[in-house]
């Protein structure tokens, strides 16, 4: 339930409706004609309209109504639902209230029509007009563009409809399923679960050696010490954390997105994969940063912890498709440590992304490009579009081959284990001397 309710500022007068005018006109005309021409049947015909009109006048509401509505929407995950809580303060003689919420893109409402009708009884103080809303795609959406109205007996008088202002609702991406057993190539920090090449305080066994001055007593390995008659201690490798920068290429969005329940576009796949990789490394205690480029460059400095993961996902929710020439060359200013790993999530369709990847690799960064182009692209119906897409795919394959030749590892996004082999290779290469262009 979103917190923060709107003050009762929405005002509307009570207006008579077509129904009331129709009943009044029928009453007056039929009674007058019946009396003037001595037609008792017309007086009988006037009777129901006279009763309805009198009833409507007796039950005519006058009090202004107060609407309480949310002024802010909570941050949700894709597929989550919330209550769009709207309440109407009841007043005497108000019998029915209605709300109509227009569903925005990637929103599902319950009731499906977005219309909810509530019957108001004499002892009701507040009328609940809440509608359930579910968001099906990451992004910043507009929610709650709705109108509220109330009517009196026989629909004779109407209050509203008043339009409620919409609010911005942020939906963070639901990270794709991802897991990896390979450690980060160059862990350098002091905390984390990556095994260091050096010995130190950690959890992974290294060797057993004779006791030295300064060793902790709890590290003494008693079975070996008893056998050898000299004190021996078990040593471990130090645990270290890595610095990972996730780069998201939002310069293009290919295919049609049907939200969390349907087909994913290339940007859907990119954003969800970026969320998954960030979540994976954060859960291992690594420091993860985020750079989104396309329409501009948005940057989030590397940090660790669940709160930081939340920030990354919210920042990913604000990803917009765009291709700005100003972003060229700005990716190089990542301000990362020498042992940081860069994971670029891209559909590899933009020349800018490929050029930046080539430059980063040339400058010695540990870079992995994750290809997030979906296997099937929707929305290509006609023969010309399909032919054009095939030509573009061939060009893209050539560009990726060139990039691989330049020393940039490229892996296709396949969920769990996508990065395992390439990370092991990078770790192996990292332990050997390298030549870089400075």
């Amino acid at each position: 339930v979103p917190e923060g309710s709107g003050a009762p500022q929405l005002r509307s007068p009570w207006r008579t409706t077509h129904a009331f005018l129709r009943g009044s006109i029928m009453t007056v005309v039929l009674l007058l004609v019946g009396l003037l021409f001595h037609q008792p049947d017309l007086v009988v015909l006037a009777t129901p309209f006279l009763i309805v009109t009198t009833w409507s006048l007796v039950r005519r509401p006058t009090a202004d109504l107060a609407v309480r509505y949310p002024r802010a929407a909570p941050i949700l995950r894709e597929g989550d639902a919330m209550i769009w809580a709207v309440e109407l303060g009841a007043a005497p003689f108000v019998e029915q209230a209605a709300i109509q919420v227009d569903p925005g893109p990637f929103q599902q409402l319950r009731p499906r029509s977005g219309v909810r009708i509530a019957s108001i009884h004499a002892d009701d103080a507040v009328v609940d007009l809440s509608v359930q809303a579910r968001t099906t795609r990451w992004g910043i959406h507009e929610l709650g563009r709705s109108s509220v109205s109330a009517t009196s007996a026989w629909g004779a008088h109407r209050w509203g409809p008043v339009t409620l202002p919409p609010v911005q609702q942020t939906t963070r991406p639901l990270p794709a399923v991802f897991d990896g057993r390979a450690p980060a190539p160059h862990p350098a920090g002091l905390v984390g679960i990556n095994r260091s090449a050096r010995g130190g305080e950690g959890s992974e066994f290294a060797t057993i050696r004779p006791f030295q001055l300064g060793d902790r007593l709890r590290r003494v390995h008693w079975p070996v010490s008893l056998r050898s008659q000299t004190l021996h201690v078990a040593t471990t490798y130090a645990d270290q954390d890595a610095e990972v920068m996730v780069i998201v290429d939002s310069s293009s969005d290919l295919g049609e997105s049907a939200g969390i329940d349907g087909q994913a576009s290339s940007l859907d796949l990119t954003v969800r994969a970026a969320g998954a990789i960030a979540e994976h490394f954060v859960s291992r205690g690594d420091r993860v940063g985020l750079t989104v480029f396309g329409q501009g460059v948005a940057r989030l400095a590397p940090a660790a912890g669940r709160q930081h993961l939340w920030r990354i996902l919210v920042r990913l929710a604000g990803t917009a498709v765009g291709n700005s020439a100003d972003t060229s060359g700005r990716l190089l200013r990542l301000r990362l440590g020498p042992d940081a790993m860069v994971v670029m999530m891209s559909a590899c369709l933009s020349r800018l992304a490929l050029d930046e990847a080539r430059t980063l690799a040339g400058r010695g960064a540990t870079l992995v490009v994750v290809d997030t182009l979906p296997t099937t692209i929707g929305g290509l119906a006609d023969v010309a579009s399909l032919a054009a897409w095939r030509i573009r795919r061939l060009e893209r394959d050539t560009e990726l081959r060139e990039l691989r030749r330049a020393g940039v590892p490229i892996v296709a996004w396949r969920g769990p284990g996508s990065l395992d082999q390439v990370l092991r290779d990078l770790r192996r290469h990292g332990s050997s001397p390298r030549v870089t262009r400075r």
Partner: protein
Amino acid sequence: MRLPGPPEWQSQHLLPGIAGLTYALTLVPVALGGSLHAWMVVVVLALACSLVARPESAYGVAALLAGVFVWILAGPDVESIWTPVLGTLLLVAHVAMAWHGTAPPTARYEAAIVWRWVARTTAVAAATFVVYLVSVGLHALSIEGSVLLVAAGLLLFAALILVVRSDLVASGSPVARPPTATPPTRPEGARWDW
């Protein structure tokens, strides 16, 4: 006692359909109570279609008045039993149009709302039959100015109700209490199976 009924009821095309159908059915009492002409059928059916297309508009009052005009031109007996039947049909058409105007067309109504409208319409239709019987009774007694008496009686009754209502509101009736601004507490939990 809770009346049985559907849990939800969608009005999208049903209420305008009911309005058009009941209006078209006014041809039945006109034919049985007087003499029906072809042009009357054409006019009534055309107006019924207009009610279906635009139920909550100025067409409504034009259609109802035209229905009464057709009744007068058909020349029925002033004591015809078909008079309250026609009145009921016109009432149902009017109520269906009014009801349709209370909410967006895609609204789904709860059973309580449906029964409220149905019960009230039935009560008004029953009152129409009572007034018809009183009118016929007065006419049978050959009382001078029976039409005036019935009309005056109805108007007096309506005026009395209005006066009583104004007195109740002015004296702070328990019904007319001010609205409470505090919303009730809502149960926690915002997850559903979609």
